[in-house]
């Protein structure tokens, strides 16, 4: 089959500590792939390797059948878009400006936009539902609105794969579900592969087509949500007691924290 993103024995060491210890797995085209795991398990590093922000110490990362090093930055940017966890806010660009920046891999060095670029930007803005925000300054938006603007920018980049690093962290409930629904719509309508790092196992359970549970830089479990999200797996990885039952809304696992039972190691 045509390969999406394939990692083979990927290791990553930073300042003598091994962050990732030989990961091999693949993300298939059209997946809604969510990476979960405790703090320091290497989720963000893994994400940075997949979008070429870091080079693995050893092992291979293949993007659509070609090693990631064979892509130059602009070509990679047409395949993979990235929404980082945090973005500096000391710049008063408007939302429209920011979304339009997503076109830069398709533009010349000076980034002069043409009719197509403007049209793509408008489509991305419409798709994300932020039409009202276009003239606002990005620095003046709320956290949720800003995240939507950055997602619109990534959509405007027309990638085949969209990577997001904890896109719902510190957002209110409505924005969390809005962003997750948006990702599902993106995957279903535009067939974009979604790869996401998340701390919210319940959101992950509801949306992921495949899950990767990381523990200390190694794959603890990978597969369907039912297979990965068992209380044995989760307790072994996170080290705290959890209740896992079925979500009454459908056949997905539901994870509940159990208060008062946590014993620090």
């Amino acid at each position, binding site marked *: 089959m045509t390969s999406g993103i394939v990692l083979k024995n990927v290791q990553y060491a930073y300042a003598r500590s091994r962050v990732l210890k030989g990961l091999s797995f693949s993300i298939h085209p059209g997946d809604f792939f969510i990476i979960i795991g405790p703090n320091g398990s290497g989720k963000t590093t893994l994400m940075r390797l997949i979008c070429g922000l870091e080079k693995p110490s050893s092992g291979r990362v293949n993007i659509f059948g070609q090693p990631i090093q064979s892509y130059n930055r602009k070509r990679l*940017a047409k395949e993979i878009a*990235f929404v980082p966890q945090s973005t500096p806010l000391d710049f*008063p660009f408007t939302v429209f400006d920011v979304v339009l920046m997503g076109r830069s891999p398709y533009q010349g060095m*000076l*980034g*002069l936009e043409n009719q197509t670029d*403007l049209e793509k930007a408008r489509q991305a803005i419409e798709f994300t539902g932020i039409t009202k925000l276009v003239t606002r300054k990005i620095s003046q938006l709320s956290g949720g609105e800003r995240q939507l603007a950055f997602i619109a920018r990534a959509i405007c980049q027309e990638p085949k794969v969209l990577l997001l690093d904890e896109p719902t962290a510190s957002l209110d409930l409505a924005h969390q579900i809005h962003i997750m629904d948006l990702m599902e719509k993106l995957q279903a309508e535009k067939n974009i592969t979604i790869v996401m790092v998340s701390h919210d196992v319940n959101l992950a359970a509801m949306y992921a087509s495949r899950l990767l549970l990381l523990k200390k830089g190694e794959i603890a479990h990978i597969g369907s949500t039912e297979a990965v999200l068992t209380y044995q797996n989760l307790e072994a990885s996170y080290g705290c007691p959890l209740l896992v039952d079925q979500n009454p809304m459908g056949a997905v696992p539901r994870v509940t924290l159990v208060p008062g039972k946590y014993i620090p190691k």
Partner: protein
Amino acid sequence: MKKNESIIFKRFIQVTGLLSVVLVAALLIGLSIGSSGGGMAAVWKGFLKTEPSDPVLMTILWKIRLPRVLLAALVGGALSLGGLVFQALLRNPLAEPYILGISGGSAIGAIIGILLGLSQFPGITLTSFGGSLATLLLIVGISTGQSILRKNALLLSGVMVNAFCSAVIMFLVSMTQDTRLHNIIFWLMGDLSLGSLQQTAILTVFLVPCFIVIFMYANTMNLMLMGKEMAQSMGVHIRRANLILLVTTSLMVSVCVSQCGLIGFVGLVIPHLFRLLLGPDHRVLLPACILGGGAYMVLCDLVARALPQQGELPAGVITALVGAPLFVYLLKRSNP
């Protein structure tokens, strides 16, 4: 929103057009006023040859004032642009060639040149240039760890290098007791009075390619403001862009410093002013800083020439006197 051509391109043309007019006006005013008189009317008539002109005035105009205003415009433009680039590169509003110590290194080189009794060109220019490049390498060397240009590391090492340079300058000044002392101090405060047409031509040859190279990276600087990760994921080659911008800007600044000494605050005030007026897009800010910074410098130099009853002030004194309070005001206003 129906546009047949790039909105940014139109804004670029508008801003460039408007500020070119401002710069030309500033240059004409600068030409017209000076210690040996003249005034607008006489200068104009002389230029347009509507009546026989005073040959002495014409000589002053061509040999003294014209090189000086052109030099001021070039240096003002280059220093403003230097500030703009460093601020974008380091995403730090305090970044400026002076604060990073690049000018300090250049100054040490130039003072050594003066003490050795070298000629203004190429002697002092070369020693000064060497000094600034050495500082640049030192700063980059200190701040280079895993990745080049960590924001705070670079700024902090710049501050330290600058402090060290200041100490060396003070040492050199203290050890000097003859007439060269006056030269050094005047030069340190930023002096445009030594301009000649030849010097201006040399400076143009150096600076214009730098302007062009930096403009090619104007959009890249926009993307870099979104943070390293996002910029990189949009296809920016961060390391390469950083290196090219840093080296080009440092070359530009050191050429200016070697010619005119330490003229501060231009690179701090002008970019901030235009950012408030025109927004954050570097494709518009860049021509604005070059032209507007040039006009500002010409006017500052004009005040420096016209203010004292006898002799003149170094232009750097005026830019600092105007710049520092304006900067504080801008800072207050932009941070509610």
